[in-house]
């Protein structure tokens, strides 16, 4: 990675927490990290993402426990911020009288559509901006779809923190081809820019429903598409780890190849930037009342190098016993060789691996509960 003036530099990790946002900057070796922050101290910083197209525009989805949600924009890596002049919101007169409680997810749009962004909300609304996040409009084809109420299980809140729309994915070959994940609701696909949608859940299970293999109603926690093999999807689901080859049209449970005592429950799944067969997950305890901590309190990352046929445990450097959770937006990878893998914990620590998950070092601690960790390669460093 290098800056605009050609200086070697390491990754930058925008970190969103329950009590504000931080920025971690690594040197070129990724051995030394500088922690900058807090920004928006006391605000819930749900998701902070740098636009990979211009490597300059950064958006932050935020709210507080009391105030409504909004989006802030920065073009100087967080030194100054400007609030969106029209944040994501459902329209006045909305038939369900939906109130947007949170902007949960941010995704930059297609490379051919500079300035376009998508935002997923809680409840499960989808919003789009075409001016770099300054003004947002509802994606009516989703929000007003005749089956939205059914698909989104409205007005039930399917998850403890409220139902949310996440994992907005834009096919790198076709800007009108979109995927979204609903917790709860399942995975959905649009091939016409969001005008119409179809469920995409065949093969995945929902053991918490009377029919364990329904058309929709699932709980995908995190869905990923590999840009070099865009007809393959991965997801970490409430009910396992899955892979889908679009030619097959069904999800297959690659988590069945995880060790039985560990299981295949978790929140995040991350993909190798250059190898569509390599993915990382962070398993958690999904038994009993769902502690959502590492199985047996022994944190470890698992990596597959063969598209889920086998998994290898990586735990060197991690605590022998710890009781944190890694949320769905709190794991990321860089593009270095070898790939750096990072995760943030509910106990406020950020961990980094520069050997693709084999060994780990703590690069930040004593932060608030971490909601999101992304990797950025900005044009200009601080």
């Amino acid at each position, binding site marked *: 990675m290098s800056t605009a003036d050609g200086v070697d530099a390491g990754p930058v990790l925008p970190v969103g927490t329950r009590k504000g946002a931080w920025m971690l900057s690594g040197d070129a070796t990724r051995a030394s990290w500088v922690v900058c922050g807090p920004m928006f101290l006391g605000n819930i910083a749900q998701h902070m993402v740098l636009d990979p197209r211009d490597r300059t525009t950064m958006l932050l989805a935020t709210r507080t426990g*009391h105030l409504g949600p909004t989006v802030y924009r920065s073009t100087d890596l967080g030194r100054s911020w400007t609030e969106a002049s029209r944040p994501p*919101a*459902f329209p*006045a007169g909305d038939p369900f009288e939906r109130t947007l409680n949170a902007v949960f997810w941010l995704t930059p749009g297609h490379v051919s559509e500079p300035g376009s962004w998508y935002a997923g909300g809680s409840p499960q609304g989808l919003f789009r901006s075409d001016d770099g996040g300054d003004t947002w409009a509802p994606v009516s084809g989703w929000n007003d779809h005749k089956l939205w109420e059914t698909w989104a299980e409205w007005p039930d809140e399917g998850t403890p923190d409220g139902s949310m729309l996440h994992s907005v994915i834009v096919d790198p070959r076709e800007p009108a081809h979109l995927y979204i994940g609903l917790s709860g609701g399942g995975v959905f696909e649009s091939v016409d820019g969001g005008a119409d949608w179809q469920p995409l859940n065949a093969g995945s299970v929902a053991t918490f429903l009377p029919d364990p293999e329904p058309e929709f109603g699932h709980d995908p926690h995190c869905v990923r598409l590999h840009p070099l093999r865009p007809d393959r999807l991965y997801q970490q689901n409430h009910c396992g780890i899955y892979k889908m080859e679009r030619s097959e049209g069904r999800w297959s449970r690659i988590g069945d190849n995880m060790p039985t005592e560990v299981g295949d429950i978790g929140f995040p799944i991350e993909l190798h930037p250059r190898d569509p067969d390599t993915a990382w997950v962070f398993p958690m305890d999904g038994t009993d009342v769902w502690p959502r901590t590492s199985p047996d309190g022994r944190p470890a990352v698992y990596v597959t190098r063969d598209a889920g046929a086998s998994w290898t445990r990586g735990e060197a450097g991690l605590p022998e016993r710890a009781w944190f959770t890694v949320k769905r937006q709190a794991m990321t990878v860089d593009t270095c060789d070898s790939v750096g893998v990072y995760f943030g914990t509910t106990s406020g620590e950020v961990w980094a691996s520069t050997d693709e998950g084999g060994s780990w070092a703590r690069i930040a601690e004593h932060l608030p509960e971490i909601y999101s960790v992304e990797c950025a390669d900005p044009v200009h460093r601080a």
Partner: protein
Amino acid sequence: MKVRIPDPLRSYTQLQKVVEADGETVAALLADLDTRYPGIRFRMVDEHDRIRKHMKVFVNDESVRDLNTPITVRDEITIMQALSGG
């Protein structure tokens, strides 16, 4: 008329605790406030003109939730945030 602004919204009013805004109803006053301090209204009022759950608007000593409540220049408006959370 005078409008008292709670701590969490003072980033919009350049840290001013009391600002001026006008209107013949609470709705009109909040609209004027948003013109003077863009973005402040949506943080305390949702898409359907409902004061958000943990926010309160007082006209003098009376808490109101109906934005159509009439007000006069003699009224003092206080926006407050409930104390909750962790």
